[in-house]
């Protein structure tokens, strides 16, 4: 007997929302992350990047918004992916809960550092 692959009864809970969110954020990251990598790594290159380049880029509000979106979506996507991978290796639920908290704190702290820098901008003395 052939079972239909798509089951219509998926409960709406944290994991099912996270599952969907990984797919939609992933699709959004195609233009965001690929655009960023194409411009900065391939076309400009690290030898032409310095603090003045960052200052010039962030002088345009649009690029700051772009970088802010990239920080939000790429990092959240990556951190949730890390949580999913770790979950495959840790069967102890109590331990997994602790690791999840640790990952959450890591995400909040690093996101906050990055967001502060994007909002605060370049400080050339």
């Amino acid at each position, binding site marked *: 007997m052939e079972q239909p692959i798509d089951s219509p009864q998926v409960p709406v809970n944290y994991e099912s929302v996270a599952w969907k969110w990984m797919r939609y954020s992933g699709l959004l990251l195609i233009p965001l992350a690929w655009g960023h*990598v194409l411009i900065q790594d*391939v076309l400009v290159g*690290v030898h032409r990047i310095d*603090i003045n380049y*960052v200052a010039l880029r962030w002088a345009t509000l649009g690029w700051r918004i772009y970088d802010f979106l990239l920080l939000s979506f790429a990092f959240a996507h990556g*951190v949730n*992916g890390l949580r999913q991978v770790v979950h495959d*290796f840790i*069967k102890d639920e109590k331990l997994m809960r602790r690791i999840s908290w640790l990952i959450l704190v890591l995400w909040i702290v690093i996101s906050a550092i*990055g967001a502060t820098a994007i909002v605060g901008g370049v400080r050339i003395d």
Partner: protein
Amino acid sequence: MRSIQTTIMGFSRYRGREGHWIFVLHRLTGLGTLLFLIIHILDTSTVYFFPSLYSHAIEIYRSTPFMIGEIFLVFSVIFHGVNGTRIALFDLYLTSRWKTPSQRTSARWTLAIALILWLPAAALMARSLLANNFNL
């Protein structure tokens, strides 16, 4: 610890061919990109917190090993994106494509598309590496 061993054994011994390989590659490229992303958020943040340190970070990125790593990073981002698009499309709209034969074909296509997109980027980055670090 034993469950970790079982999982690693499962990942390496499971013989799912294309679908299995591309699953492992998706995870490796994802974790690799995340590792770089964490470092990259922190080093870029120095422009606000410690502006004088930013040039040191950039100097490290300009070294030959890091520029070679950057070429693989770009492969990871491209591959993870192409395969992620496949996963999203199949999961959200084309669930029947997860059946083994079409899954294998699509896995091969995914790798081919990722390589075709990566090669010109890799060539440009390799040219920049040779020009800047070896005066070629």
